[in-house]
């Protein structure tokens, strides 16, 4: 599988909507397309007025698999970009603990 970045700009009017979408996405990814897509991580974007979007990092067999996954889970996918190389300078800052 290759690595991709998916842009989902202005995807959801509220954080709760994104939460529900993420839950659907997990189920579809794990149960229906586990051979084709693998969710690695996401960055949640502040789009103003409470709206959110995401930049997602996925492994996938093809860009088409990612678009199929987005359709089934009801997610937008503005752009799917193939990743050439990964440069890890520092680990992601850890988000606040529960």
């Amino acid at each position, binding site marked *: 599988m290759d690595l991709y970045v998916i842009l989902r700009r202005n995807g959801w009017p509220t954080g*709760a909507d994104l*939460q529900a979408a*993420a*839950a*659907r996405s997990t*189920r579809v990814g794990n149960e229906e397309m586990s051979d084709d897509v693998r969710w690695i991580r996401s960055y949640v974007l502040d789009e103003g007025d409470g709206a959110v979007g995401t930049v997602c990092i996925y492994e996938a067999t093809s860009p088409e698999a990612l678009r199929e996954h987005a359709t089934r889970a009801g997610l937008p996918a503005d752009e799917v970009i193939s990743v050439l190389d990964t440069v890890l300078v520092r680990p992601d800052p850890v988000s606040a603990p*529960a």
Partner: protein
Amino acid sequence: MTSPDHGALLERSAQLALFAERLAAVRRDRRGRLVLVSGEAGIGKTALLRAFCDAPLPVRVLWGGCDALHTPRALGPFVDIAEQTGGELAAVLAQGAAPTEVAVALASELRRTPAVLVLEDLHWADEATLDVIRLLARRMLQAPALVLATSRTDQLGSAHPLRLALGELPADAVERVALAPLSLAAVEQLADATDVDAAELHRSTAGNPFFVSEVLATEGGDVPETVRDAVLARAARLDDDARAVLEAVAVEPSRVELWLLEALVEDVRAGLDACLGSGMLVSERSTVGFRHEIARVVIEEALPPSRRALLARRALDALTAAIGRRPDLARLAHHAEAADDAGAVLHFATAAGERAAALGSHREAAAQLERAVRYSASLPRAQRAHLLERFAYECYLTDRMGDSSDARLLALEEHRTSGDRVREGDCHRWLSRLAWFAGENGRADSEAQLAIDLLQPLGPRRELAMAYSNMAQLRMLTADEAGAVSWGNRAIAMAEELGELEILAHALNNVGTAEMRVDVPGGFEKLQRSLAIAVEHDLQEHVARAFTNLASAPLDHRDYARSGPYLDAGIAYCLQRDLDAWTLYMVGYRARGELDQGQWETAEASAREVLDLGRAPSPTHVAPLVVTGRLLARRGEDGVWAALDEALDIAAGAGEIQRVGLVANARAEARWLAGDDDAIQVETAAALALALMRDERWIAGELFLWRRRAGNPEQPAPGTVAEPFALELAGDADGAAAAWSAIGCPYEAALALAHSSSEQSQRRALAELQRLGARPAAARVARRLRESGARDVRKGPRSSTRENPGGLTARELEVLVLVAEGLRNAEIAARLFASERTVAHHVSAILRKLGVASRGQASAEAARLGIVER
């Protein structure tokens, strides 16, 4: 239940009126109150509270509940409440603060503006939650809050920590409301518009409102035999989409977030509305849940295992990938186990256990770690051993000594296989400690020796120093002072060399206590040094232990001037830090000192303070039981043997001379006071042999004395008994009396005087015993005087207790008069120069003796008995 299909609540208007009245009182007095609503599952506790809170209230409502996870979320209800209040409370909870800080934040939140605080399902509460409630109780009087708590009666045993927590509130600020099942008339009213046979419905549901509403909701003709059948019949009427939603919600013991539901079922919208419409599910703030926990359990248990596991898998994946705030670890551990995912169980259950331990919820910590242990077969040896040892430690803290021992043995096996001699030795040291708790002193000794044998060849290290100190503690506890000193000194030397301060504090305590017992100079200084180290490094348990031994060793030798200040300081220290086990232990000791010094009323109050808490019997109870038994015997009241038999049961288990001797002497005295001299030899024989072997001169002396008073002429060997006893046993009763007076023990002095050969001394003894209220002893002395031909021996005033019809003591009478005047405990305390706590004890004794439930009824009874004017 406020079932949407059946409208208003029936037969609950008295309770609603009571809540309203209590809320008005809270607002008027700006003083907190608590009402505990109890009843079986489905009786309508939640429905009652909802009905009260849904009506317009003049104050805000804060709602928190405990959930039915096998191992509950730590501080669950307060997390719920913080979501409603925000502010400081939310901040401290987000930081994972300890129960003390949570209670302080909540109390200041409640002081801000009046509130109704609902705490639901406390029978499921975790320890940290109960700690907060207990700490809150101490602060609640100043907060204008009406706390409405619910609990299932059938799950609240007498030793439940909730009872302990409620014990912190003055009796007049706590009320219990038990909900009764619906009457036949109410069931008839509910079934009125249906074709269900109301009598049959009432019989098969026993008037349980939830069961009734489930049956009526199915609209079928037949009444199902069980509530389970009723729930399943109702669910069977839903379509597939709705059933899918119902099943998904059932796997989550608390409420399910709507977003999470998206991960659990394919088409939420299609099924959810039907579930809500049927009334089986209710929605609240972007979550859904069952209207009643009974229904949730029924639906969950009816799920096929594969479906159950799939839903748990989905929940686990979605919660793990949740955006923003991390979900509660206990919740993740629960789903991980339901999904049978070993890796996830190990990860989340271990983390949840550590978090619970850090919050002081040690029972939940033990349960989570136990869950991880069940899945630990695949772990590398060292890791598995570490997990087992963590589990063993949490069990040790929560009095699960058998499980702790089993886990240590498994860990020992892992260490032995992987050749880790240090850990292996440390496990033996732990097994020694655990064996001692189990009363197996022989095994405690052999395990302690095994630990030393294994560790010694490996050279100086903390595990070896601890093994030495453990041996010293064992020797000290079994009153082998020489052994304690010799092992303890090795521990001290090594701990100093290694800079291990905690072990140093432990070892200095063992050696110092042993030396003090046998009056070796320097023992006192060692204990003081142990205290100083512990205070400086905030080793709280060691501070408490140092205070306890500094106070108890001189008290065992009747040196009250030396013991008193340490007792006071120790109790204050432990109270402030909620080290309750130690506080109670020291209060028990204080009761003994008060009794010895003739302060019978305060001794009675101190003893009751420990015994009233309703915890399972433990060594802490021995001293207060002995004080209670002796007081009852000395006053000629009932209940002596109940107290002294319980004390004997506890003391016999441990077999330590300090406790065995204490109990044997109390029982000998009670026999003597009852004129049952023949029984004294049997009561004292074993304890005397042990006391002589251990060179416990104060205990041996008293035992000899009771035997002598019962007519046994045996003479102790020189130097084996303490001075006041030696004097009387040598025939110098007047000298003994003088010695007792100098020490400050008036009752002992009077009894010694009574055994003088001089009639004048005996008359003085009689007067003193009458003054103390020691009726049976006075009677015995009076009889002796008359038998030896003395004249004009007055029987003395009958004990005041016998004179008034309520059987109240003089002090209780005083309190009752003030209660009848309408004074509160604080005002009574001020009038009588007593503490509020003591007054509260008197008031509960008065209510008990008069057989009444309230202060108002007590006042009426006082008037009826002619104690106060009408």
